[in-house]
């Protein structure tokens, strides 16, 4: 199997990876009870997959919606956001920066890309290796995050960030209504323009975290995961912690 060399294949490869990553993320962050996950392998890498049909279906739907947006060429980034159920505040954000995806007109979705003549020809195996490495780094990155408050429950959402020049995806037709424009006051999506998610709050309240072997700093931070580069498939993954994660002391 060669590397994805059309926009459609590119989108398919990425969304497949995104599906796998979402399952792994909600496992790693214990969004759902860990017993509901089964050990599976994807890209020849041991992972967990949720076995709850509704969860699976939701992820499938979400990823399909992301794919349609990618095919439209409007997506700059996709985010998996872990939110607190009690406060409805974002806690962590897993970012997939897709701004380097090629933009292709609709009629050319299945047109093969011109080869770039890169020095090293990559194969699908290399792409899988990239994915594998990324997933592996994702696991270790999660270890470096501050633990989520123990007494709260969490949900997750998937957001996309559209390119500057693109129209917002929400539209009048039903298919387009899958995306809800977020209330900027509540969820900070536009990190570029919304500094509230930035923890410049070194002055923020210092909370008592339960002692853990490696005490994480108690400010929000970015944990880089990995950049994936395989032919035209180029994206970067990182995790951000939101300031709100540290604002609500576990007790309150």
């Amino acid at each position, binding site marked *: 199997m060669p590397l994805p060399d059309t926009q459609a294949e590119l989108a398919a490869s990425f969304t497949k990876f995104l599906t796998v990553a979402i399952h792994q993320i909600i496992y790693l962050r214990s969004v759902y009870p860990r017993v509901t996950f089964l050990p599976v392998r994807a890209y020849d890498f041991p992972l967990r997959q949720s076995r709850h049909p509704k969860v699976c279906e939701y992820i499938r739907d979400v990823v399909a919606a992301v794919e349609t947006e990618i095919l439209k060429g409007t997506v700059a980034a996709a985010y998996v956001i872990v939110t607190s159920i009690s406060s409805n505040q974002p806690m962590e954000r897993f970012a997939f920066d897709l701004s380097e995806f090629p933009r292709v007109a609709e009629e050319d979705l299945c047109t093969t890309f011109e080869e770039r003549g890169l020095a090293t020809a990559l194969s699908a195996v290399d792409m899988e290796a990239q994915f594998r490495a990324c997933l592996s780094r994702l696991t270790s990155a999660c270890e470096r995050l501050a633990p989520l408050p123990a007494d709260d429950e969490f949900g997750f959402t998937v957001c996309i960030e559209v390119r500057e020049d693109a129209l917002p995806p929400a539209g009048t037709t039903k298919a387009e209504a899958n995306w809800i424009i977020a209330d900027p006051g509540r969820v900070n999506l536009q990190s570029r323009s919304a500094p509230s998610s930035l923890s410049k709050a070194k002055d923020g309240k210092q909370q008592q975290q339960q002692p853990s072997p490696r005490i994480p700093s108690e400010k929000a931070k970015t944990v880089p995961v990995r950049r994936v580069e395989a032919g035209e498939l180029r994206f970067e993954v990182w995790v951000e*912690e939101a300031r709100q994660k540290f604002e609500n002391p576990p007790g309150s």
Partner: protein
Amino acid sequence: MGSRLDVNSSAVRKQIDRHIFDNEEGEEYAASTFAGFGDYMRRKKLKLQNLDAETRSSSQGNPPIFHDVVVHVNGYTQPSLRDLHHLIVSHGGGFLQYLDGKTSATHIVASTLTPKKREEFCKYRIVKPAWVVESVMAGRLLPWNSFRLLDEGHSQKVLHFDNGRFMGHARINDQQSYKAESKRSWYTSQARDMNRTVPETHPSLPASTASEVLSVDLTTGGEMDGEIFSPPGREMAADGVWSTRHQENAPRNDVSDSTLHVDPNSPRATGVRDNNNGQLPPLLVDDAILSKTDVTPEEYNAQLLCDPKMKNSSVNPEFLQQYYRESRLHHLSAWKAELKAKLQATAQEKSSGPKTAMKRAPGARRYILHVDFDCFFAAVSIRNNNPELADKPVAVAHSAGASSEIACCNYPARAYGIKNGMWMKGALQMCPELKVLPYDFPAYEEASRKFYSGILDVDGTIQSVSIDEALMDITMQCLEAGGTEGKGIIEGSIYREQARADEIAKDLRLSIMDKTGCAVSVGIGGNILQAKIALRKAKPAGQFQLKPGDVLDFIGNLKVQDLPGVAYSLGAKLEELGVQFVKDLREISREKLTSSLGPKTGAKLWDYAKGIDRAEVGVLTVRKSVSAEINWGIRFVTEGQAETFLQSLSDELHRRLVEILVKGTQLSIRIMRRSADAPLEPVKHLGHGKCDVFNKSVGLGVATNAAETIGKEAVSMLRSFGFSPGDLRGLGIQMTKLEPITAASTGKPESGQRQLNFKASPVHEKSLPSVDPDEVESPGRGDDTELGVSEPFGIRPSLNDSTQTPLNTSGTQFILPSQADPKVAAELPVDIRSCLVRNSHKRSHAAPPPSPSPASRFRPKTYAVELPPQSQLDPDILDALPDDLRAEILAHYQQPSEPNRPQIHPPTVQPRSSESTKMKKAAMTIKKRRGRPPMKPSFNSTLTQSNFILTKPSAVDSSSARSSRQSSPSAEQDGDISADFLAALPDDIRCEVLGEQERTRLQHHSEFGDTASRDPLESPSTPPGQRRLCLPPLRRKPVFTSKKLSTLPELREALTDWYSSFVDEGPLLEDVTALARYLKRVVLEEKDIDKAVSVANWLSWLIIDRAANSHPTEMQEDVAKKQGIVSDSSDTWSNALKAVQDSVASAVEERGLPPIEFL
């Protein structure tokens, strides 16, 4: 003798003889040693022989008939092992409990042997227990041959002769079951003897008398040649120990050929035809016969057939016709088949119309009607004959006799609890005033015809389910009413659709009521399943629409047995799974369902539970088998009758095969045999009662439908079962693996030879009548093709259909040549000429070049005359032309002769083979409205068309300039487009040309180095003929130092080198800034935070590592001297690290992310 068998066994014999048992003092009574199993066994055998010796000595009175015999008994026998043992030993024989080797015993006694042992023992003396018993009875050693269990080469058929007459192949009846063995066995006969008054036969009765007895028995038994079918109970009448003997002798004594042979044609069997239509008082016969307990089935059947009223049996040669004439089921099924064929014909008629061309969107709403008569037979019978009975309980049945089945009953009767398929006896008990009406097939047929005519009036796909019910797909009409495609929802559309469906159903019911006078019910649903379920609620005489929202609830509350296709057996299985209602079914996983019910049924039920039914209305299933089977009235006396019957069944099958024009290659037979415990006469008169069913099939190799072949195969299969003819209760033959008969061979059934199928030659096909009637009539057609003028019309058959052929709109009946001599054209009348011109226009549209190239769109519309070579141009004419035109023409002539043109695809260049091609291309480029200027290409003039396309992968694309730089290094030529030429162009084209030229030049200048390095890689790797999408070039990755480092390992290595070389004096500031700047670019431009962070972390590792390892030693060695420097350098290094980290952090912040945490 003198064989190994004798040697070994006599050794054993002698050993036994020699052995003397005195007391229990012998060696064998000592304790055995540890692990001495061999010794133990030897002693055990010795002890057993001691026992035998004692028995032998204690029974001196018996004649030592088994003196030379050593016997081993294998398996279950009657008499038992113990008894046999005693019999043998007490008569002087030797007995082996353990068979050390097959040769150590002279005889092996067994009733049956496993197939393996059969093989192993087939060369030894295997005798039946009867040999021992009878020898003892006879007081002498009987020859073992007559008691052999295995026949040497028993697997071979043995020819049988009877009175010098060849009787055919017969198989020695050597495979007795234990049951058979026990029936005629020692104990049984002894037990029977107790009850018998007949005096015990004398044990020493000579064998000759015995055979006389046997023949008498057989004669009274009325056997013809039924030895093959010798039933187990047949020898019941025989006495005592002789029974076994009979069994052995019987095959050789085919005595009773003549006695009770029932001739199928004899008056007794045929009987007088009874006008009373099969109403028999059968119980009388039964009682009479059953009182005689031990009759064979053949005897029973013979007696049954003796009954003069008994004409309804399979022995009657007329039976089959009679059966099919009167069988209700057969009548209905034949009728249904006819209806199906009719509907198929109508459906085909309809589908040729334009309406069905409309395609249904997948997942669209559907509207299916299930129309069904209410109590069809009863309603029609009542209306036709007895309108006054309408409110009374009425049933339709063969007769009012107790044993006739109710085919149909009306609703008043159902109120009494009477159901279809019930026996009249039970029904009359429930409702004594039940009125029974006879069948009235003509009326049913009439009603059905009206019913279907009413249904066919409604527009939609129709599928006949049976004569009185049909499925209809009226989706189209409903969707029209709703005004949607069936997918989206416009306000009220669903309501309108449903209302329309109801309306159609109502009209249908009224029209059928009008036509037939009987009520029908209609169920409406989104698929066949839903329609069927809705119908149940609709009955009687109503209609019900199952709306999509209610489906799940409605179906969920049904019992599983209410689902179509689920009845007792499936229902019972489901009950085991704990399913009673359909909603319970939804709780079960699909896997469990498929594993317990089978993949198809399971999946179907799983879908059904959710109201899903994938079946389509009107989808015709291909017939896979044809069969003829009769399970009623099968009573034979002789094998001959059974075979004759089978032959006539084959004739029937043949008839059916021919009817639907098929042959088959596989023949299956299905035999119902009376179960061993079933009574001779079942409850239902002449029915089959409780039966064991046997199937067998044979491949015929060649597809056939010949009655003789089928009959022969069927008979041999029947014979191979070896059933007693009297026990047969049902026979059926079925042909599968059907092949259609080709038209040629329809007349003569089959030749028995395979025929090679040659494909019809294309010539033949071409000679078929053309679709276009105009063309056939056209006198000009022949000329047209001969001239070979218009390739798409004349030669290619695929284009030769009505849609492609230009319609003769202008009224001339001549097919116009598409390339007409202009002179001739000028002479033509105006109308024809206009036609001609239009034609040539059309042609240039109709035959586009096969590639989707954008260039092809710009082919000239007016056809260009090929340019003559330049030398032949008349300078005068050239002069006379307007300036611009002349420039254009001259430009064309210039191009091809241009020297030193770089050739990009040398192998594919068409060399100067045809001047005309070049000219043509040149002419074409001129007319191009957009795209490249004609000057540029070098390709245009010499390349073949496909290459031409290839080298311009995205001429329409806005980024075409960029791509063109890759394939055309001819920027220089682009530069010098003659001003003349440009001036000659129209304004808009000129702008385009200039614009493109500019872009190309810019491209070359800005990215020249890049292009140069890439080109050699790219151009050869482009596969031909496919359009490629050119992506914008990648942003170049930021690189570090002059070595252009980019990957993490490289960077780490560089850092390590850097650090180790500057470890003491500290880093240079510019290096640090360079690194910091690079890492910032990595974050911002390359977008790889991870890499930047890793590099920074690597640096911090290096510093920490150094501090941890080398610091202490240095501290000790050069405390005073180096202290300052070291701390200095480590300070500068940590400052450097800080700078790098800050740089990365600021970059991350610039991207709007929370800060990074470094090591």
